[in-house]
């Protein structure tokens, strides 16, 4: 049994939003995807610092893409989830699946 801690809730959501956006996984688009899917506003500070943290953990990479004629001529970042990041998401999902197993009837009854 491992002792490695799981990804935080916001970290999971961010990685999933990046995966959902795919080729369009740029900063503004990822944040909007996150807000639309969760129904909650995301502060820029939390968003960008969490991206940095995930990158330092090796769960995502990014590269700058040049932009012309908008954004004040400044580049945008394209994000990609690494294989390590995918593995972490799988690990979290597996743990949740295990915990949820056999509880469907409990949840159904309390609704």
């Amino acid at each position, binding site marked *: 049994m491992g002792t490695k801690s799981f990804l935080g809730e916001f970290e999971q959501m961010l990685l999933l939003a990046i995966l959902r956006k795919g080729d369009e996984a740029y900063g503004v688009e990822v944040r909007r995807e996150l807000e639309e899917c969760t129904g909650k506003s995301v502060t*820029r500070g*939390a968003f960008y*610092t969490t*991206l940095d943290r995930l990158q330092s953990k090796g769960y995502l990479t990014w590269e700058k893409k040049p*932009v012309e004629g*908008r*954004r004040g001529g*400044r580049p*945008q970042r394209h994000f990609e989830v690494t294989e390590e990041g995918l593995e972490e998401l799988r690990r979290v999902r597996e743990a949740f699946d295990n915990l949820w197993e056999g509880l469907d009837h409990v949840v159904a009854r309390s609704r």
Partner: protein
Amino acid sequence: MSDAPRPPRRAERVVEVGLAGDAATDTILGDLHQEFDERVAGGGALRARAWYWLVALELAARYRLRALRRRLPGDAEGESRWRVGATDLLGELRYGFRMLRKTPLVSLAAILTIAVGIGMTVQTFSIVHGTALRGVPLPGGERLVQVRTKNPDTGSRNQSVPYHDFLEMRERVSAFESVGSVYTGTLNLAGEGGPPERYDGGWVSADSLSWLGVPPELGRVFLPGEDREGAEPLLVL
């Protein structure tokens, strides 16, 4: 050159300083610029600028706090009681700030209540400090004592000492180094031909200014005996 509104330069500078050379600074500024343009189109330049400033300050504060947390001592695993404690504290502060924003009216009432409470506390302390703790702001003021009387017939307290009692006290009381009388009030003074003017002043026994340690603005203080009955009225400025 385009006339389209652009993000406030000073707010952009705040972001640059806050991010302190972070490799992603130009892309984050680009993201903010993109959202700024969209907000200008949707709600006008003024609101977009106000929004930009708020975001710039939030971003700068978040990155500065992160940099501060990273400077705290950590052990080999990167975590220490300092760092964990600081992280908890920052988390609590963020949570508190969010709650304040969520209920602005309640927050305003709480802030006003705290402000009034602090104001009253400071006011009370100022009075206590000025009257009871600090003492009289004169040289050797901690040794000064004011004597008041009580009228046993009427029960009224804190009365001035009658002059004849003062004279007797000065003769007989040995507990004090010196005994003098001070009676404050306002005086109307008039020069030759000029209109009278009103001043704050007082009537004192001759040696009072000596032991109060207050030098005169002009000339000298009273000499012993100059307060005797029938003496010429004298004034010290």
